Each structure stands twice: as C-alpha cells, then as structure tokens.
C-alpha cells in the first residue's frame, strides 16, 4: 500500500513537471511564432478576425514593403559588414595576443593577460560617454569604424580568455620540433598553432558574431547616419515615426531574426557552448 501511494505521488510529480515544461515551451516560442504569423497578415486579420492562429492567406506584400519602404536590405548589409569585420579583427588581434601570453617567455605576461581579461567585468555604461567623445575627436563617429573598433575592444577579453585556456592545453613539444626544423616563430604560429586551435576559433566566431549582430547600446549612441545603421537600429519603429502597419513590421522583424535562428538551429551545440563557455571562469 505504502509503495503504491509513493509511486502515485512520483507519477503526479512527473506529470506536474511535464506540464510545466510544455507550458514554458509555449511561453518561450509562441510570441515568436505569433510574430511570424502576423508578418503574413493584414491589420484586419491581426486585430479582429484571426489574432492568434495561422494566417488565412499569405500576404507576401508585407515582405515586399519591408524591403522597399523600410530599407531592410540596407540595414541587413550594414549588419553583415560590421559583424564580419568585428569577428575578423577580434579573432586576429586576440589570437596573436593569446599566443604570446600562453606560449612565449616574457616578463609581465601574466599581468598583461589579466589586464586584457578585466574587460569582462566592465559595464559598458562607464565607457560609453567618454568613448563617444573620443570617436568624435578621432573623426570617425558615424562611420562603420565607430562600431567595429569598440566591438573589437569589447569582445577581445572574451576571446583572449577562451584562446588562452585552449593554447595552454596544447603540448609544447609541437613547437619545439618545428623550431628544430628551422621554422621561425611566425611560421610556427601560422602553420602549427592556428590549425590546431580551429575548434576554439569556431566557438569564438559564433559568440562574437552574435554579439556584434545584436549589439544595440553602442550603435544607438554612436550612430545617427541612416545609411550605416545596423538592423537593431533600423528596426526601431516605435521611436520616431510610429507605424500602424503591423504586418510589415512583423515582416521586418522576421527577416532580421531569421539568420540568427537558422544559425542557432544548425549549430545549436556550438552556439550554446559559445554562449556559456565564459561562465566557468567569469563567475
């Protein structure tokens, strides 16, 4: 009797948790699905006839006006430019630094590494006010560089953290044999180290790409020129001119989200690893 009631209780617990899991599944996903749905509806359908469900017929014209009226392709292009150069710049600079810090002999290398990693603990609000003035004085405000350079600087700490850890775990004999074969330090770095560290590079690329693609606060403060705005800025419909065309807005937001969601679905393990890898050391 006792055992039976216990199993019953366990069953009940199980069911309770299962229901909770699927309820939160809906809470987490349905708003996004709702957005994708209404991106194919007109206002009448969104507001009155069919607010919740699948669109009755696909109003593709929303997507046409997203590309024509709302300039989405321009913002999209800018986002790609900024993210691409941020990723390349961060990887190059941080990898070189991490190599020197992890595998070469020099005084102050630990101090230099800790100095670089400090960036992880710095809230952007203490940087942004003087930085905006600095960029203005350097005459690069309202250019791509005004986003790319700060993004590189802000992401370097994370990249160094990951690369350093990875580089320390490789046996030192590898380079020794390369040196004996007569390779110099640059050649060893390029043809021995870089190929080995590729998995770590992939993790960091994903992380930085996500950060740069979605970055809002810097871009909002530093960029006012329409033609170089990235997607997070270009999508700000409610600031400035208020739009009542929900369908077209939904289309813009769906287009902007699509690449990230696809990248996540394809590389979900890597994305999750990239997003959480810093936690081990940061905490």
């Amino acid at each position, binding site marked *: 009797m006792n055992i039976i009631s216990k199993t019953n209780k366990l069953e009940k617990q199980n069911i309770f948790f299962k229901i909770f899991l699927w309820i939160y599944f809906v809470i987490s996903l349905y708003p996004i699905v709702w957005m994708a749905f209404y991106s194919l509806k007109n206002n009448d359908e969104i507001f009155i006839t069919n607010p919740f469900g699948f669109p009755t017929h696909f109003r593709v014209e929303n997507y046409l006006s997203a590309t024509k009226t709302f300039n989405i392709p321009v913002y999209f292009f800018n986002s790609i430019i900024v993210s691409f150069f941020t990723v390349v710049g961060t990887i190059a600079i941080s990898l070189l630094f991490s190599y020197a810090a992890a595998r070469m002999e020099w005084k102050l290398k630990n101090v230099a590494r800790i100095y670089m990693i400090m960036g992880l603990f710095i809230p952007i*609000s203490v940087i942004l006010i003087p930085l905006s003035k600095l960029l203005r004085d350097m005459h690069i405000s309202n250019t791509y560089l005004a986003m790319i350079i700060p993004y590189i*600087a802000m992401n370097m700490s994370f990249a160094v953290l990951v690369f350093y850890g990875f580089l320390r775990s490789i046996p030192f004999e590898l380079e020794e044999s390369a040196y004996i074969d007569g390779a110099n330090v640059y050649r060893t770095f390029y043809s021995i180290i870089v190929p080995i560290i590729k998995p770590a590079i992939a993790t960091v690329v994903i992380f930085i790409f996500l950060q740069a693609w979605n970055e809002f606060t810097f871009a909002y403060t530093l960029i006012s020129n329409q033609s170089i705005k990235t997607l997070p800025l270009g999508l700000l419909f409610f600031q400035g001119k208020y739009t009542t065309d929900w369908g077209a807005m939904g289309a813009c937001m769906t287009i902007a989200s699509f690449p990230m*969601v696809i990248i996540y679905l394809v590389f979900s393990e890597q994305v999750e690893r990239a997003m959480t890898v810093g936690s081990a050391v940061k905490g």
Partner: protein
Amino acid sequence: MNRISKNRVAVCIFTLPALLVFTVVVIYPISTTFYRSFFKWDGIGEAEFIFIKNFKNLLQDDIFYTSLKNGLVFAAVLVVLQIGIGTILALAVSDNSLKGKKVLRTAYFIPVVLSITVVCQLWLQMYDADNGLINKIFEKIGISYRQNWLTDKSTAILAIAVVNAWQYMGYHFTLLYAAIKSIPEHFYEAARIDGATRIKAHLHITLPLILETYKFCLTFAVAGGLNAYANMLIMTNGGPGTDTYTLTFMSFRAAFQTNEFGYGCAVAVVLVIESLLATLVINRLVARERITY
C-alpha cells in the same frame, strides 16, 4: 628553442595591437569617466573642477532614487524569474526518461539569439492595450482584465523586466542544465536506496553541487538588472514620466541629452560601485552557504 620563444620583437608584434586597442577604447574611457565625475562640464567647453559636488547633487536628485530603485527591482525580477524558472526547467529536463528534450532545450534558448530590438518591439505589441496578444488572451478566456501595461506607473518597470527575463531565461537554463548534467549518476544512488523523492534528492544533492553555477547566474542576472538600459529605452523611453529610469538611462540622458557630461559620469561611477558591491555580496553569500553543506 628558448631563444625563439623569447623573441622580443615577436612578442611586441603579437601583443601590441591588442594592448593598444584595449587601452584606448576601454581603459582610457573608464579613467576619463572617473576623472570627469569631479567636473562640471558640458563635454565641449571649459571644464570646472567641482570635486564631489556632482555626487552631492545626485543625493538630492529624485530621479536618482527612482533609478536606483528600478535597477534593484529589475535585478530582483531577473533573479526570481530567470533563475527560479531556469532551475525548475533544468531539473525537469535532466530527467533521463523525458522525451523531446532536444525540442524543449532549443525552444527555451531561441529568444536568447534574437536582437533586443526585435524582442522589445514584439513585446510592445504583445502589451498593446487594444490589440496586444496578452489582453486578447485575457479577453478570450473571458476575464475583463484590460491593462495598459506600460503606461501604468506601478506595472511599467515590472512589465519591462519580464521582457528581459523572458529573453534570457534560456541562457540561465542552459548553464544550469549543463551543470546538472555534469553531476555523476552515483551521487543519487544512495538517495534512491533510501527512498527519497526526486525533489528531495535534488534539494539535498543537486543544488548544493551546482552552487558555483548559481554564483555566476546570480552575478549575471544582477548585473543585467542594475545595468538595464536598452529595454526601457526601446519600450518606454524612461516613461511614464521618469518612472522607468535606471542609472544607465539617467547617466546617458545627462551626458547626451542635457549636456551635463560630468554629472552623467558621476552617475556611471555610482553604477560601477553598485555593481562591484553586488558582486562582492553575491560572492560572500554563496561562499558562506557552501560551507554549511
């Protein structure tokens, strides 16, 4: 070998770009923020040294207290919702017999990869008083609970915090899930033999073992709350009135809108000190708890 790995020129070539960029773009601005917090300055003209007057003024500024309170409320909502829900979900998903794990995990994480602009505007539409999803759902169930979530003084900051909590819950879930998965199975065998329920086993075995992860989650959630900015900027622009200001919002407003550059820097300094204190407190609290187990 030694000679090559001590190559001074190579060390310089490898490290200087990183050190230079980091110093100019991160360290120099931080020191400027601290330095300028002692000045009355509009950011362009002559700066006047006024020592701690900015901070004194801050203590008499009502907006400062609103901002301080909002930061704490925001942080509290994030901690309760993200870590609370994240824990329950992570424990439930880690159950070996559960089906559809991958689908659930993916669904929980997707909001994390969206842009904050998309998320905030999506929720603006969900909160919309007339046509929003939330009021429509209330209507559908038959509850006449129409609310203007974002223009109501008392709910506005909570409504905004919920949006951030929704977006980043998956992040905390993933961290906690990974931590739970790394606990070896045999830790639970003794509990199972003693006939402990799963909830009990989790309370006494799982949670103490993943305290380190909790420390990180707490730090992350609290920092996210205290530094909140983009959410209110997009959703309410600080309104109604100044009811959803946070310290970052107040600082940028002073520096970029009203040209009180020095005052904005002073607010930023207070924010850094507040964040540091919070980190210290969290480290203390979690470390002390760990000793009792």
